[in-house]
C-alpha cells in the first residue's frame, strides 16, 4: 500500500532522488505506470531511467549500475539537488513531528542518547535541497510525535508559514507523510500536517489514536485509493520475494 501510494507522488518527467528500501520500489512502480519519463538519482552516484532489472538490497548493488545513465561521485548527484534540479525526494525516518521535521539521529540527549539511530545519510540533504519531498513511516504513536527532540532533516521547522524561506532552505519541504495507515499532507506554504486520506480497512479514529498529536482532518478526507493491478504487478516484479514489503500490505 505504502509503495503504491508513494509511487503516485512521482510526476511524469520528475527527477527523483530515490532513497533506499520502499522508495526504490515506488520509483519502479511509477516508472512502469504513470511516469514513464521520470528519472531516478541515487546519492551513491547514479542516475537511471529504467528501474534496475534485478532485486536491489542497496542502491549500490550491481543491477542498479548496469544500464545507468551516469555513474559518478556523490557530490555530483548532490550538486544537481543543490541547484534545484531534483523535483522530488524520499526520506525514511524513525520519528516525524506535526511540522514534518524528521529525527533519524538521537532519541534523548545527544550527549547520552537513549537510542542512537543511524543518522542522516542523505536525508538532511534531501530535506533541505529537493523541491518537495515525502517521508514513509510506520504509523505508530512513538513515531508520529508532537515535536521531535532532534531535527536531523528539517521539515517546516516550528510550523510558522515561510519558516523554510526565512532560514534560507532551498527546497519547499515535505508535502506528505505516507504511513502504514494513512496519507498526511501539508499546507502549500508549510505548517502542520493534516490527514488527507485513510487506507482501506482503517478508520480516522484509528489513525488519530496512533498519532502523537491532535491530528487535524482535511475536509473531504476519504479513503486512499487501493493499489491498482498494474501497481501490484510492478511491486511483485521488483520485489519478488517480498524483501521490502514483508509484513506490510504492499
Amino acid at each position, binding site marked *: 500500500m505504502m509503495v503504491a501510494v508513494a509511487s503516485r507522488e512521482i510526476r511524469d518527467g520528475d527527477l527523483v532522488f530515490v532513497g533506499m528500501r520502499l522508495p526504490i520500489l515506488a520509483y519502479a512502480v511509477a516508472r512502469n505506470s504513470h511516469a514513464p519519463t521520470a528519472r531516478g538519482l541515487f546519492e551513491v552516484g547514479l542516475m537511471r531511467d529504467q528501474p534496475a532489472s534485478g532485486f536491489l538490497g542497496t542502491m549500490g548493488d550491481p543491477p542498479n549500475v548496469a544500464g545507468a545513465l551516469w*555513474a559518478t561521485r556523490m557530490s555530483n548527484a548532490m550538486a544537481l539537488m543543490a541547484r534545484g534540479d531534483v523535483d522530488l525526494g524520499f526520506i525514511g525516518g524513525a520519528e516525524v513531528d506535526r511540522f514534518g521535521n524528521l529525527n533519524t539521529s538521537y532519541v534523548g540527549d545527544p550527549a547520552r542518547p537513549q*537510542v542512537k539511530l543511524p*543518522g542522516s545519510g542523505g536525508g538532511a540533504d534531501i530535506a*533541505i535541497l529537493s523541491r518537495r519531498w515525502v517521508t514513509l513511516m510506520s504509523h505508530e504513536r512513538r513515531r508520529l510525535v508532537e515535536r521531535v527532540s532532534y531535527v536531523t532533516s528539517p521539515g517546516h521547522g516550528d510550523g510558522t508559514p515561510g519558516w523554510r524561506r526565512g532560514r534560507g532552505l532551498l527546497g519547499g519541504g515535505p508535502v506528505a507523510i505516507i504511513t502504514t495507515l494513512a496519507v498526511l499532507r501539508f499546507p502549500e506554504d508549510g505548517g502542520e500536517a493534516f490527514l488527507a486520506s485513510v487506507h482501506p480497512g482503517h478508520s480516522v479514529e484509528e489513525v488519530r489514536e496512533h498519532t502523537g498529536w491532535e491530528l487535524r482532518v482535511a475536509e473531504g478526507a476519504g479513503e486512499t485509493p487501493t493499489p491498482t493491478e498494474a501497481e501490484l504487478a510492478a511491486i511483485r516484479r521488483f520485489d519478488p520475494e517480498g524483501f521490502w514489503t514483508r509484513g506490510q500490505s504492499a
Partner: protein
Amino acid sequence: MTMAEAVARFVPDGATVAMGAGLEALIPFAAGHELIRQRRRDLELVGPISDALFDQLIGAGCVRRVTAAWLGNVSEGLGHCYRRACEHGVPRSLEVHDHSNFSISLALWAAAWNVPSLPTRTLLGSDIVRTNLDLAEADGLVHVSAVRPDVAIVHAQRADEHGRAHLWGPLGITEEAGLAAERVIVTCEQLVDAGVTLSDPNRILFPETKVVAVVHEPGGAHPSPVQGFFKRDHAFYRDYAQRSRSVEGFEGWLREWVLATPDRTTYLERIDADALRVKQPRPSAPADFGVE
C-alpha cells in the same frame, strides 16, 4: 604486499581512517577485519554511510570517534554495536561527529583543496549543525570544516603494483577521500600489468603518488558488491544483523569470521563464493587513446 603488512605499516593506533567511501559497494571488509585482528585502537573512522563494517570495528573496540553521515546495516537497519557504544559505552564510549552525505563529501574536498572549510546550503535548519562542532552556520550558509584522513583504504576492481587503481560503478566519495588522505591503501580483486591500467588513465582514480600499498585481495569486499566480480551477499548482512543484537552474539560472530579466520583466503573458503561471483561479462566499449 600482504594485507597484514599494509595494515601494520600504514595504519597505526589513533589513525584517522577513511573506509567504505563508495557507500554500499566496494567496502574494504578484509582490511577492516585485519585492523581488528591486529587490535588497532583509538581509530577515527571517516565515511559517508557504513554498511556494517564500521559497526564491526566499533564492536571490536577499535574506535574512538566516528565522522560519518550514517552508520548501520543498509538492508537490515540499525547498527547494534554502534548503539551499544553510544548508549552504554560498550565496549567503549564513542565520540560521534554527525554529517550528512553531502557535508562529509565537502569536508573531504576541503581537505583535498587544503582550505579550512567549504560553504554549503545543506544542513541549514538541521540540528546536526548544533551538535557537530565541525560545522558552523554563518551568512546563511553552513561552513564544513576539513576532515583530513591519515589513510584512505579503498577496494578496487583492479590495480597494478605501482598503485594505479581502476574503480568503476558509482564512486560515492571515494575520489575525495583519496585526495584528502595523506596516503591510500588499495586492495583489489585483480592485480594487473601496468599496460592494463595505463591503457585507460581516465579510470585511474587517484595519483600513484598517494598510494603506499597495493594488496591483491580477491573477495576482499565481501559481503559488499563489486561490479563485475561479486554480487552483494544479502543473507550475510542479515545474519550479522541478527547475531550482533547481543554482545555475546556479536562476539561469537567476530570470533567465527574475524579472530579465528587468519586471512581472506580462509574466509572465502567458508562462504559460497561461487554463488556470489558474477559470471556473465558486460564489458564497456573501449575508448581509443590513439595518437598517430
